[in-house]
């Protein structure tokens, strides 16, 4: 299995994600990358929103006219939701996006 992972060199992958009322306007609800890829999620939104990528634990505030990017090396394999962050005792929110990092 290590050989299979090594055969594919890490790539740089960028995703443009534009939110309309907290939902990804176009494109799939899941983005897939391979482990060790350099990933950049570029967010724009029609309203102010705090986004949290679970697992990698990255938080960004996105607002109209103020896009933000999450850039990281995808070293942990798994399926990670991006959710809208709420304050206080956080409650269940539908994920905005899923990031799948495949081995």
């Amino acid at each position, binding site marked *: 299995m290590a050989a299979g992972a090594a055969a594919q060199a890490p790539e740089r992958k960028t995703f443009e994600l534009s939110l309309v009322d907290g939902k990804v306007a176009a494109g799939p609800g899941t983005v897939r990358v391979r482990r060790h890829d350099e990933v950049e999620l570029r967010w724009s939104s029609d309203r102010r929103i705090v986004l949290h990528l679970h*697992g990698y634990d990255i938080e960004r505030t996105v607002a109209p006219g103020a896009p933000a990017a999450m850039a990281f090396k995808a070293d*942990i394999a798994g*399926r990670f939701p991006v959710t809208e962050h709420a304050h206080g005792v*956080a409650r*269940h929110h*539908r994920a905005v996006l*899923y990031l799948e990092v495949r*081995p």
Partner: protein
Amino acid sequence: MLCAASPAAGHGFGQRFDLPLPLPLWIAGAGATIVLTFAAVAFFARSRSASAGYPRVVLLRRAPAAWIAAVRIAAVALFVLTLCAGFFGAQDPYRNLAVTMVWVIWWVGLAFVCALVGDLWALANPLAALHAWAGSPSLGLAYPERLGAWPAVALFFAFAWMELVWPANDVPAYLACAMLAYATLAWAGMALYGRDAWLKNAEAFSLAFGVLARLAPLRWNGRELELRPPGAGLAAAEPVPVPVLAFVLLMLASVSFDGFLETPLMERVFLVAIRLGFEDAQLVATAALAAFALGFLAAFWLASWAMVRAAGGGPTVREAACAFVLTLVPIAVAYHLAHYFSLLLTAGQFIIPLGSDPFGFGWDLFGTARYRVDLGIVSPYVFWYGAVTLIVAGHVIAVLAAHGTALRVFGGRRRALASQIPMVALMVAYTMLSLWILAQPIVG
């Protein structure tokens, strides 16, 4: 702090980041299940012997009293510490010991120990230990036998609802309140009817961990500690009473429902319910949990009916159902292990920093408070192959246990073999449900 935002719906606490099973692996698992089922049936068709017992090795001939006392003291200390953390500690679920202790270490971790080693809860139960230390107060009323284990069924449904539906199950103080309420009820019950009657009929966790421990290799049989092959205790088991049958099926349903809650199909159920005017997700999830339990009951009753028909009579449908229900347990345990072993190894790591700072007050008792959880500890390959192996192995143990039970219940090899067609079909369907859930992307 890692994943400090809302945990997803589903299990009480701790988030699973597992990738879905890849399609080829899912197909391989399903294929192996069917092939091994046929192989097992073919093997039975040739074998002649039907032994009621199982091979065993006696490890201890008397209870090690000092060790048992030590285990109970530790369990009571952890129980009190967890309650105190819940009531008086910081209310952030990731900084308070209570949430990780209850949902990850106790409910998931202890279930693993009971299924794979032996019934540790029966030994350590802090509610029973505290009652005993208080001098075993009891009014000695006769437990109403007509009730049987139905109180445990009701309490387990309430617990499953708390685990899977209750939105506040990760608020430390609420969790501590629930623990204290349950403990008070248990102590009141023990004071009314005596400890043994309450533990046997109404203490939901004694029943739940006891059911899991039927699979375990270690067993205290009252006089000695014995070692036996995993699953051997299932075929040799006596038929259970009807309320225990209901309890086992409810437990199996809640285990599968836990995974089902996070599938895209359940998400669609929520969306359809909203379109129909049922906006309250909790209500929909509660109804779905109840429907799952009733569905399991209906499917199992149907299979039991078909089993009696196929064997050409003998026991009644109810007797057959009560004799066979425990043979499904390995499939549920295998699913539970597959579903949770990565969670136990990732979310379980929270216990390392929490051990040094159980109240979230900023202490560092053992110098581990700054430990950061390593999510990469379980590779997806380990998860995928481990999960499929567990599920296929659980299925095989279940098929073997069911055959052993059939020989005992129906007598005669030919009738036992015929009776197993519907039961094995149900088991294959149940195993396929487990594999299907694991192949779904986690949403929610």
